[in-house]
């Protein structure tokens, strides 16, 4: 049994805005981060599958390099957007996440090394082409493995952060930080839940690649649609098995939250399940009929709703885990009115400028071609 006084005391500084502001920012930015991560990791996995598993090698290679060219943008998107939830999670749950991080400090620190190497790997692959592939496949696989490990380390840390009862034994057995949370029953299903979701989103990413090529190169786009759509389908079907495993692995009290004990959690779970089934049915129909609109607009729309529901569920689950030690009502609040509005103004301006940047580049239609 843990010593009850191991939970660090709250930071003496009050929350500089209402609690709900941080919760909202945490969930919104987490959703954006996880979508970018899914496109990046899932896209890379699907690209590798295309290269090595597609019956049509020419198609497989083309899909591989088409996706590979996007990865050096998707990885920084994942990292950059990820900084925000990392910030807000520290504001709300710093006591838990700092502690678990220190307990598994070396693996946590290694995330940085793995990320840097994986990142350069993606760049290497993106600078190659079908004519000069070099070791593109092997390098891409290495990067994917490294990111896979990073995801696993994140799952370790986040599960450890919400199970303080394991802290003392782990830390005092090895204060040098060579710990993981391997004995946690939810660890593997939770990690697989995220990984399989990434593969599904990777499939959807290919559907977008098909959309972008639909008019330019219809035959290629049709094949990409089929490959991406099927990847999405199989992964989402597998997700039902993984999801059930994850649900069963939860302690009974937590599991029951989603099965009636908490109306909100149950409703979100049902929406998520229904959305998952609907996405499978719609995607399989879309692939049969080659209905790009359903595959590239309706299904992603439903998936976005499912991800949002799942992210809120994830938050509710964390609060349930931390319930004995975490009471938002105890956290003092003192909004920094001298700077919070400035953040809001800059945030809105930043989003507008960002969209203008993308628009002027031609992401939403016509592109200004070089006069060189």
């Amino acid at each position, binding site marked *: 049994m843990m010593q009850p006084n191991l939970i660090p005391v709250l930071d003496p*500084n009050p929350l500089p805005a209402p609690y709900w502001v941080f919760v909202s920012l945490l969930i919104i930015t987490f959703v954006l981060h996880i979508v970018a991560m899914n496109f990046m990791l899932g896209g890379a996995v699907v690209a590798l599958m295309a290269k090595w598993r597609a019956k049509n090698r020419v198609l497989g290679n083309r899909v591989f390099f088409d996706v590979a060219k996007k990865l050096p943008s998707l990885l920084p998107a994942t*990292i950059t957007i990820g900084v925000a939830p990392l910030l807000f999670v520290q504001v709300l749950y710093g006591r838990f996440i700092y502690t678990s991080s220190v307990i598994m400090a070396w693996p*946590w620190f290694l995330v940085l090394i793995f990320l840097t190497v994986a990142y350069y790997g993606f760049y290497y692959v993106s600078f190659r082409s079908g004519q000069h592939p070099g070791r593109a496949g092997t390098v891409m696989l290495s990067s994917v493995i490294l990111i896979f490990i990073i995801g696993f380390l994140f799952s370790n840390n986040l599960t450890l952060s919400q199970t303080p009862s394991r802290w003392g034994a782990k830390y005092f057995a090895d*204060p*040098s930080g060579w710990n993981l949370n391997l004995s946690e029953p939810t660890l593997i299903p939770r990690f697989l839940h995220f990984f399989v979701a990434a593969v599904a989103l990777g499939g959807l990413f290919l559907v977008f690649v098909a959309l972008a090529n639909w008019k330019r190169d219809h035959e290629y786009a049709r094949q990409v649609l089929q490959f991406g759509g099927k990847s999405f389908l199989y992964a989402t079907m597998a997700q039902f098995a993984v999801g059930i495993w994850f649900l069963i692995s939860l302690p009974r009290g937590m599991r029951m939250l989603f099965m009636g004990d908490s109306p909100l959690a149950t409703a979100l779970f049902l929406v998520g399940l229904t959305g998952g089934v609907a996405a499978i049915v719609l995607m399989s129909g879309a692939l049969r009929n080659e209905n790009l609109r359903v595959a590239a607009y309706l299904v992603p729309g439903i998936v976005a709703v499912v991800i949002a529901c799942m992210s809120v569920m994830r938050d509710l689950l964390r609060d349930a885990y931390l319930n004995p030690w975490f009471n938002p009502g105890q956290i003092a609040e003192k909004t920094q009115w001298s700077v919070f509005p400035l953040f809001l103004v800059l945030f809105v301006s*930043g989003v507008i400028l960002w969209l203008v940047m993308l628009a002027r*580049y031609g992401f939403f239609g016509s592109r200004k*071609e070089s006069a060189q």
Partner: protein
Amino acid sequence: MNYPVWDVAFGAGLLIALVAILHVFVSHFAVGGGLFLVLTERKARHKNDAELLDWLKRHTRFFVLVTVVFGAVSGVGIWFTIGLISPVATSNLIHAYVWGWAIEWIFFFLEITAALLYMYGWDKLEPRLHQWYGWIYFIAAFASMVIINGIITFMLTSGSWPKNYEFWKGFFNPTYFPSLAFRFAIALALAGIYALITTSVQKDSALKTRIVRWSAWWIVPSLAALPLLARWYIHRIPPDVWASASGSAPTPTLYAGMAVFLLIVTFVLALLSLIRPGRIHLAFSLLVALVALGAMGSFEFVRESIRKPYVISNYLYANSLYAKQIQGDGGFNVDAVNSAGILQTAKWIKVRELTAADQATVGREIFRVECESCHTANSYRGLRHYLALRKWDENKIQAMIGGLEFMHNGIMPPFAGTDQERAALAAYVSSIYPVAATAPVAADGKTVFMQNCSMCHRVNASDALFKNLPKDANTASEAMKDLTSLFPLMPDLKLTEQQRMALAQWVNAQRTAHGIEAPMEGGN
């Protein structure tokens, strides 16, 4: 002690230094290099210099690979690392400045997007639009420096923040503007220094000549401005804090000297590159970059070490104890720990009972929670090294731990805990480099001074030892028999008669050598 301490055998401080120095060397390039890209593009287009444009395109790819990849990951890396090594400080910085970080994140996001569009847009965008992305990149990168600079300088000179906790009071603190100007000058110089690297691998010597000369315009004036900006910076640092880098404390003094020396070497090398710019070699350009990295690393070391004993000045000590009692500190302030004891206060401590048999074991635990944020036993800032110089036995160590806050211009926080806990810590520290109480002691004045006094005293006219110790060696020796009666905070060192006499004579010799006036006979 509110959080577990990560036990890094080779030194947690070394790890954060490594991550931080590599990061700043790239992140400053990310700012200056952004301006370099747009202005060079403008110049090349204005002069219709196709070769220069072609080089700049390749340089952009290098720029993105260095800044967007390594710069961004190592920036997140600093967060990871400080969260692991100093969670209390990180939590304070996050809670007090979350809106600062959040604003910086907006600029970071714009910066990364603009950098990628600028790189991918070289062949796709018309020139004006391409440069528009370059300008957005530079402005966003500079804006993120404007924000981060506020938080970094707040840690060194927190201004009135510890009294009023007001965001902008801490942000626009005394060193804010000089630090911003200083860092921007470094950023501009680094833009030119990094450009030398990609230039040196070009074959066209005429092109090399043009770029090296252009880069010199970035490097030379910026480096020449640094001494002036440094003066302004130093002027805004409280004199008692800056004293650490001007002789009172060995580490910051050493690094201040290195920073100046390496800055001069960088400057000279930059000028040398102009002698035969068309033949600049990769090895030479990497040497310039390496020396600049050394200079910049030394500067950051100075800033970090003069900030000690604090991690946030006048608020939080480097070992995560609050300097004074504040609301919500959980009892983690020096006074509270002195009365309750560290073993009863620290959360992450294994043994809470102290017995005669396990002094050193418990002392090791105390060392971990109170000292390991800066020290190791045998590696980085290792105690073995210091003890080998001083030859302190356990009793002397215990006495010295009682006055840590007076050593080297107060660069260490005071020991917090009970006398028994101090004895336990001394037992552990002594086990790192055992010296028997009966071991022969040094008897020449200089060694006696270096081993026993130099931590707190320096040879100058304002130093209490040199100002007040009686000139007559016998009287001085008699006075030093009981040091605590001379000054209550002095450790009770129990020097031998021979040592005291030698010390008194050496002090007089130094007075003569440095023109320090001795007190009137009978003075103290």
